[in-house]
């Protein structure tokens, strides 16, 4: 048990090292001269040289990579080319809104999607099932910013139920904070809810056809306990896996959602960095988000052990 946990935790180290290698080598494998691209159309040759030196493109790959990795290990992600401030510091300033958005989205989505999937599986081929699954296909097809604008238009501009845009720090109170995050979370969570609801329905359908469910029914267990105690517990592993994998969708979507709802988080930082061609900034953000993603999936693997005592690697 402890051995498995330890091995699983250690196995993330090579994955993270690979991710770091990729993120770093993007500069070198990009077609053309990245220094010239980052400098922009109007840059003078001196500007291009300055950027080349700042990015370290004039020095050998391995030397630069080992320096950079050592720096990353001490949480130094370099200096932003536009603001001249450390990337780590800029990220730390913007982390609260993004983290809040993610936490609220995941909570809301799981609370909505799992019951939807269970009901759809319970009443398979009913109108409930078909409506839910039609919404799920729609969820995969409508981009997050479209959902965002629709929600903002109806529920904020027309009905005035929620603030249109912006963010209130949690320090100013839980309710104002949550109110500002509800619409963005539903927008961001739309595709995530679709994903989780579909996998919940599929696994529940499989579990509900098992012998032990029939036995439980035969001995007179009520439908509620059958669904939530016997079936959902055994369907939990695939559902939790998808909750973990789907975080990749949320990370990509957060960048866009923050722009729609004017939330001053990491997404806005990313978009500003793109517009300003601030590559060290982009590199830092991509690396940080990827590490978070790896760690989320590590957490999922560790949760397996709790959910399914049979799992022993």
């Amino acid at each position, binding site marked *: 048990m402890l051995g498995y946990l330890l091995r699983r935790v250690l196995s993330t180290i090579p994955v993270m090292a690979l991710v770091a290698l990729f993120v770093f080598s993007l500069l070198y494998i990009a077609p053309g001269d990245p220094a010239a691209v980052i400098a922009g159309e109007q840059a003078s040759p001196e500007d291009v040289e300055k950027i080349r030196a700042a990015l370290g493109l004039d020095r050998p790959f391995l030397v630069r990579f080992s320096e950079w990795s050592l720096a990353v290990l001490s949480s130094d992600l370099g200096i932003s080319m536009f603001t001249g401030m450390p990337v780590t510091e800029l990220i730390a300033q913007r982390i609260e809104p993004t983290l809040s958005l993610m936490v609220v989205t995941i909570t809301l989505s799981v609370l909505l999607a799992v019951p939807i999937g269970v009901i759809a599986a319970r009443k398979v081929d009913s109108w409930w099932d078909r409506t839910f699954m039609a919404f799920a296909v729609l969820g995969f097809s409508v981009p997050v910013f479209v959902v965002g604008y629709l929600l903002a238009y109806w529920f904020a501009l027309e009905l005035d139920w929620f603030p249109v845009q912006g963010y209130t720090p949690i320090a100013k109170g839980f309710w104002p904070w949550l109110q500002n995050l509800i619409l963005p979370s539903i927008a961001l969570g739309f595709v995530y809810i679709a994903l989780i609801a579909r*996998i919940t329905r599929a696994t529940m359908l499989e579990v509900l056809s098992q012998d032990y469910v029939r036995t439980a029914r035969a001995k007179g267990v009520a439908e509620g306990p059958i669904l939530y105690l016997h079936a959902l517990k055994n369907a939990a592993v695939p559902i939790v896996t998808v909750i973990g994998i789907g975080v990749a969708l949320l990370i990509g979507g957060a960048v866009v959602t923050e722009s729609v709802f004017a939330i001053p988080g990491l997404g806005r930082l990313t*978009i500003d960095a793109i517009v300003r061609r601030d590559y060290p900034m982009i590199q830092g953000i991509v690396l940080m*988000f990827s590490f978070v993603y790896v760690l989320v999936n590590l957490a999922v693997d560790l949760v397996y052990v709790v959910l399914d005592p049979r799992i022993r690697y």
Partner: protein
Amino acid sequence: MHDRAAQPRTAFPAAPALGDVLPPMRVRTGVAGFAYRYPTMAIGLVLLALMLLIAIFAPYLGTVDPTALAPAKRTREPSAEFWFGSDAFGRDVYSRVLYGARVSLAVGFAVAILASLIGLLIGTVSGFVRALDGVVMRVMDGLMSIPPILLAIALMALTRASVQNVILAITIAEIPRVARLVRGVVLSLREQPYVDAAIAAGTSTPVIILRHILPNTFAPLTVQATYICGSAMIIESILSFIGAGTPPIIPSWGNIMADGRTLWQVKPYIIVFPAIFLSMTVLAVNLLGDGLRDALDPRMAKRV
């Protein structure tokens, strides 16, 4: 379900003829039969065909130059002159949306084809060459640990904005999933008795791959390619929307919506029309994918 054929056939006296018990079977053929059996695929195909026609015949559908500026006619509401209104530069949103179909479909199809081919190659090699398998799959794991949109953003930040670069960036982000899928299929096929038989019969490895392995990857790969097409169109619109995609001069749906971003509270139609077209197109592709999956793999059909 009971297997009637397996039950012993006892001769009942005066068994009713099948025709009296069962309603007459209607065998539907042709287009109607296809639409009846695969409704989702049929709806997807019709919608997709419509979008393709719009993309091809965009110049003949009452459009004007989608890049023509008319500063005197800025932000007009939808009217007889501007069917979908005009944007902040006086450009005709209707024409821009119709021409935008070209960019989205081109990106979607190109990424789907490229990612499938490269993923097929990597997956097959990895499934067959044991020495490479570990390394290749660790590389794919690493790539998959970077959220696809972020990987595309990072790649786009290093290259000049162009449709080709958008296609390349999204392709690189999508390859690992295809490679993993193909490798999985190849590994399970390798254990099949008919592959053992082919090996025992002295068939060379390239022939085994071409004859016995590749044809069996076709069904799952086609389904996956359809989903990739849909996700590529969404990623393109997101990249363009945040300013890291196709150059702003090209009317892609993401770009049109990016132009309407600052005005969305007062002139929502600039965003609404491209949004409807984009969602319909991706929906069409996803319905096609769901239909294909159900048709090609009936065992999967009831599960997901």
